[in-house]
């Protein structure tokens, strides 16, 4: 084996070892997913295909929001080892509202979002190699036109 090959191979092994280390969290913001306008394209981009509907995801939000500019949403997840949560509003110009990575936090998120119109809020959760999903309808009186 030539020295150069050896160096290349060993650096690849080192990288593999780093990424395989438990607790090493390598996450990036999926810039493109925060620009896409279609739910299907976002799911495809993030590999979140065919989520199973699950009662283990609870979305708390008002049935009726006077002001779409500030809607308090709480997502509580009761699924084994949830790693990631995607929160989307289907009527927003940019549907992806949040992409959450749980490292050492409980699988709960409280967040203020904007909803452009009466919307279905979708929460998708990645747990043990599978995507799960839940949906909640929020009627919006005055839209919080935005992303």
């Amino acid at each position: 084996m030539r020295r150069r090959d050896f160096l290349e191979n060993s650096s690849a092994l080192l990288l593999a070892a780093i990424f395989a280390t438990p607790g090493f969290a390598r996450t990036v913001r999926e810039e493109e997913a925060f620009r896409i306008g279609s739910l299907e394209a976002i799911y495809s981009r993030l590999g979140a295909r065919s989520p199973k509907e699950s009662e283990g995801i609870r979305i708390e939000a008002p049935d009726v929001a006077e002001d779409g500019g500030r809607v308090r949403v709480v997502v509580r997840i009761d699924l084994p080892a949830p790693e990631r949560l995607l929160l989307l509003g289907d009527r927003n110009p940019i549907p992806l509202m949040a992409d959450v990575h749980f490292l050492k936090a409980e699988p709960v998120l409280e967040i203020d979002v904007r909803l452009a119109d009466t919307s279905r809020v979708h929460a998708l959760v990645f747990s043990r190699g599978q995507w799960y999903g839940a949906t909640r309808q929020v009627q919006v009186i005055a839209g919080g036109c935005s992303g």
Partner: protein
Amino acid sequence: MTVKDILIRMMARVVEGGMQVRAQLTHPMDSGLPGQVIQGRVQTFDRYLSEGGAAVSPTGRQTLSPPHYLTEVRLEINGEPAIIVYVGPAVSQDPLFGWRIPHGRTGDRVRLIWRNNLGETGHAEVIAQ
């Protein structure tokens, strides 16, 4: 708008079974899309001109104001990453975030680190009570 305009009010409270962390960031969360109400004012073309510069929203459209929004909020407990929240302009102006951390103890250092679409970053730290 500069980094010093972003204020963070944060509290970390030890509760049964863990710690509750809540933070409110004062931030315009300006998506750049027209018609949006920012700090009590509807975005207008005059304001856009007065602030100068062409602007393009994340969807690629020409906009009335330069977009300015949070892209990431992360929490570290005693220096260890606990949760990372990547967000887009659909997060509210002056948004509130709430999290729960297991095994929280009084005295834990809770640090919030944010980033925005302009590449700016900042942080705030509190001690769990």
